[in-house]
């Protein structure tokens, strides 16, 4: 989230697209309701009429996988009707930037597409630079090659009729949504967009998110209170996981994991430290050397010296795609010997689970670290296999649950909240930290004893979390924050600061590239300082009245509650909306008031020191036109991999960057219906956490599918009937819930039905049922590989699989 949960209350219009917060983030509604009490409008766009939709002022039904069409239509609506926040767009986004001449877009493809490699040459989309090396701009935004004009042209094709013909939305509903939300394009209005898996789980998921961001930039909604691009993160600490480098190609703090070729530290730094010639651009990533060095110092301690490039060579370098699907693919080929599943249930969670389950058969050993017995830990006795045929050795380690251990959890709003241990772990279960600590110590002992090909990355690690039975989680937190490795003097403007060796670094501004500081995750620098554990703060004061609660827990970066907040003020530093000022420049005191600003510099207009608001980008401006997206600078509508319709906007049916895998079928005779999967309040994910709890099983005891009344009639299905759902990948049995909340879509003049299903059921636990992921396709987003769980083709018949 650019903003945070409580900030939702400041919105004039809340646009929920591709998520269902009433069901999946119930507490969010506390703040959504608050906004509505103050006159805010709630808009929901979802294929189904959900519990969130039931609270909305406006509901628009849209076909799974067509969000770009919908959002593109809104962008077009805002542009055509002059509803954008013009000053914001001109000053703070790259709307005025001129794009090089090579760029063009034709027939659904951007320039420089390599049909063989299925890739674009990103350089062909670059800005046109002036003599000084800075991008050229036309502040009147009239130049036909400026982003604004290109944008306008691109989305002019997304008129309401076209949009609705693609999305299946009723035109009046679409227009209502567009009109209501685009009304927040005024300086004194704030609109927020909430999204999650309905947006991301798509072969063009990242472009969906971009479309959200672009709309928000056009409306001047980023950086302001009640605005923002707000991803409702999923698993309780998934924000923390991503911050600490969850993805295979990233290191903690969103630093890049070196690629195979980056064997040299200096070359690595050179490559991943963006540069700018524009003095007004803060270009924060310019600090990359400080952060990567501090990270290496945190990991290798005294072993990391300038001479040995701070042990840079010990870092793994990635050579190919290690995303979840690829790992499973390799496992299926027998290329993976052992697997540790720590709080994950791959027999259930990934697409085409049958193949994942089959892949587990090929393992020599499997370790599951979980609160429960899961489908993964009993994969060898799943329905349809003979345990005798499976030779995998399985170790089940019982893990302590979140209330049985101390530590931090980072929520969607980037708040790191410290939690205390409430009860002793049940039975023999241990905290994950304890388990990892044991793992490490034993592996390290083995490497020390037996050496091996390349033992140093393990043997040289600095691993000092106390000698107690349980590693000291505070030492971990302090290491993450970082400390000085020697006595240091820092001159910060007019102040001179003295630090002793071992002092906690107060903020990431003071991290150094010379090895004098450590930081396990630079964005968390400041979370555990001399003043103590900032994450454990519980002061409920709210001086601004905006719900920032600056002294409640701690929020990265630097306790800044709303990021890009420099965009909430005019170039002079006056809040766009004086009624809800996030920050405001006090010209007398020469300082910012309100939230922690995005950098200490004076307002942008200040000739000497002023800076652009989007400090994480080299050009300092929000990107309406992207430079580094694999699949195009503007989001373009393509159909999902399995689609019931042809692409009405161009001849390119699917995202051209995504290879079509084997088990995909667009045979509309066999599979005429749209299948989609989702969550519901009563169950959690793959169900381990909830299908074993009788109170929750009582609420939703069976795997079910939701279908429309018309489809039910057509198939002779009644509520409560057993049905069978099939796709190219498999078949499942479920109970039919016939409801008017699901309706067919009118796509390209034809009616298309949908089958909705939760994916919480499996063969372990108290309540069992078929898993929806037996049906889903293994195909993912061009940029992130996230699987397309939300739109595929299927069929439904009366009678179960056993019938």
């Amino acid at each position, binding site marked *: 989230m650019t903003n945070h949960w409580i900030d939702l209350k400041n919105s004039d219009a809340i646009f929920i697209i591709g998520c269902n917060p009433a069901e999946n983030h*119930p507490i969010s509604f506390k703040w959504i309701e608050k906004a509505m009490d103050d006159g805010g409008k709630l808009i929901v766009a979802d294929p189904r009429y959900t519990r969130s939709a039931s609270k909305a002022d406006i509901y628009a039904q849209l076909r799974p996988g067509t969000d770009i069409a919908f959002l593109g239509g809104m962008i077009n609506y805002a542009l055509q009707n002059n509803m954008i926040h013009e000053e914001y767009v001109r000053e703070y986004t790259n709307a005025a930037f001129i794009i090089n001449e090579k760029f063009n877009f034709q027939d659904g493809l951007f320039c420089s597409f390599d049909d063989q490699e299925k890739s674009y040459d990103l350089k062909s989309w670059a800005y046109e630079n002036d003599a000084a090396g800075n991008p050229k701009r036309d502040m009147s935004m009239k130049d036909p090659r400026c982003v604004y004009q290109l944008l306008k042209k691109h989305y002019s094709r997304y008129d309401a009729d076209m949009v609705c013909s693609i999305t299946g939305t009723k035109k009046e509903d679409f227009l209502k949504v567009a009109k209501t939300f685009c009304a927040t394009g005024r300086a004194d209005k704030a609109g927020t967009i909430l999204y999650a898996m309905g947006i991301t789980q798509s072969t063009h998921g990242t472009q969906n998110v971009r479309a959200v961001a672009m709309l928000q930039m056009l409306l001047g909604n980023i950086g302001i209170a009640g605005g923002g691009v707000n991803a409702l993160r999923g698993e309780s600490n998934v924000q923390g996981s991503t911050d600490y480098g969850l993805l295979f190609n990233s290191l903690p703090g969103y630093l890049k994991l070196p690629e195979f070729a980056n064997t040299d530290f200096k070359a690595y730094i050179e490559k991943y430290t963006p540069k700018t010639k524009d003095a007004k651009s803060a270009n924060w990533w310019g600090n990359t050397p400080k952060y990567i060095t501090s990270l290496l110092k945190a990991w290798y301690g005294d072993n990391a010296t300038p001479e040995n490039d701070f042990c840079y060579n010990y870092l793994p370098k990635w050579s190919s795609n290690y995303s979840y699907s690829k790992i499973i693919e390799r496992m299926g080929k027998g290329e993976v010997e052992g697997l540790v599943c720590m709080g994950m249930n791959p027999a259930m969670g990934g697409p085409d689970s049958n193949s994942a389950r089959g892949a587990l058969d090929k393992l020599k050993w499997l370790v599951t670290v979980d609160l429960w017995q899961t489908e993964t830990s009993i994969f060898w006795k799943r329905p349809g296999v003979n345990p005798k045929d499976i030779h995998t050795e399985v170790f089940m380690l019982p893990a302590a649950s979140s209330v049985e251990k101390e530590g931090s959890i980072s929520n969607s709003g980037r708040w790191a909240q410290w939690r205390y241990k409430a009860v002793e772990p049940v039975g023999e279960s241990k905290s994950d930290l304890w388990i990892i600590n044991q793992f490490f110590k034993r592996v390290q002992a083995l490497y020390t004893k037996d050496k091996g090909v390349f033992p140093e990355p393990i043997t040289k690690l600095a691993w000092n979390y106390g000698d107690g039975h349980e590693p000291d989680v505070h030492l971990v937190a302090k290491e993450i924050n970082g400390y000085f490795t020697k006595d240091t003097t820092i001159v910060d403007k007019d102040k001179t600061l003295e630090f002793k060796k071992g002092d906690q670094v107060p903020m990431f501004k003071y991290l150094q590239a010379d090895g004098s500081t450590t930081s396990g995750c630079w964005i968390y620098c400041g979370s555990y300082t001399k003043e103590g554990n900032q994450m454990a703060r519980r002061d409920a004061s709210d001086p601004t009245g905006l719900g920032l609660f600056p002294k409640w827990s701690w929020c990265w970066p630097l306790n800044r509650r709303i990021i890009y907040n420099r965009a909430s003020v005019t170039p002079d530093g006056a809040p766009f909306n004086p009624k809800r000022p996030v920050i405001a420049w006090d010209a007398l005191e020469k300082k910012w008031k309100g939230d922690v600003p995005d950098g200490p510099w004076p307002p942008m207009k200040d000739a000497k020191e002023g800076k652009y608001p989007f400090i994480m980008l080299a050009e300092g401006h929000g990107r309406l036109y992207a430079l580094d997206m694999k699949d195009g600078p503007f989001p373009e509508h393509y159909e999902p991999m399995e689609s019931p319709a042809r692409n009405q906007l161009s001849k390119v049916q699917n995202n051209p960057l995504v290879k079509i895998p084997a088990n995909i079928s667009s045979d509309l005779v066999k599979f005429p219906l749209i299948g989609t999967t989702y969550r519901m309040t009563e169950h959690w994910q793959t169900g381990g956490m909830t299908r074993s709890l009788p109170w929750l099983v009582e*609420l939703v005891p069976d795997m079910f599918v939701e279908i429309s009344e018309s489809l039910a009639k057509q198939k002779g299905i009644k509520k409560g009937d057993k049905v069978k759902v099939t796709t190219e990948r498999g078949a499942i049995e479920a109970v039919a819930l016939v409801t008017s909340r699901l309706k067919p879509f009118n796509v390209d003049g034809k009616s298309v039905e949908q089958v909705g299903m939760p994916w919480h059921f499996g063969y372990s636990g108290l309540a069992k049922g078929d898993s929806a992921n037996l049906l889903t396709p293994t195909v993912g987003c061009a940029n992130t590989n996230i699987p397309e769980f939300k739109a595929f083709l299927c069929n439904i018949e009366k009678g179960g699989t056993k019938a």
Partner: protein
Amino acid sequence: MSGGHIDFNKTKSFLIDTTKCTGCRGCQVACKQWNQLKAEKTVFFSGEGYQNPPAMSEYTFTRIKFRDYQKHGQNEFAFYKEMCMHCNEPACASVCPVGAFKKTAEGPVVYDEKRCIGCRFCMVACPFGIPKYEWSKAFPLVRKCTGCYSRVKEGLQPACATACPTAITYGNRADMLQEAERRIKSRPDRYFQAIYGKEEAGGTSVLYLTHQPLDELGFKQVTKRPLPSYTWQALRLVPGIFLGVGGTLSAITWFQHRKERIRREEEFKNSRVKPEQKEEDQ
């Protein structure tokens, strides 16, 4: 019955705004957890939407009812929390022969299971069908929402109210009423213009606001008069009737027997037979 005089303005009350209820059922589960109630065995859904279990019971003190229908071509997906209304003048308490139910000054209508003889009159009497019976047991007791009295007494809010992200506000009845009035007045498009529980059954400690008309959501239409008054109008006559009947019958007896005696005396005068024997005959 209520112990002494209770100021109903100050009794703690629930304001349940169903327009803000997301049907998350956190309240339903929180109630089970706080009261350590057994889960019910359910199959599929037993009602509209995702509704479960089929009814409130000895194991379920509160439940979200789902409505899933269409009106003028628009979907309605509505949720409402069923629970004891904690009536100001509870029918359950008034009919209980042993006074096992009691309206507390804090608000909750509480149950003293040590008194209960298990006659189930409370179940018959409750206009909202709240008290449930332990049908599974050989010597059953009555079960219903306790209003989380043990929490409320200690200054906490009920478990369900604490769990609810959006819809439940808890506080003094007068304040809750005021807040409810404010809401329906300030957003007439959002609210059906009625506060269920304000006057129902003579006023309750659970107040509801809805968007849909009450009957569409399945709210029971209930008399506005306190229910105990219906029986009391008859029962209050008891002493009078008791003495009245006694007095009347005594008078009639005296009169009838006097008639008889007079008749006898006449007879005696006329016949002049031995008087002692006549007397003995009586």
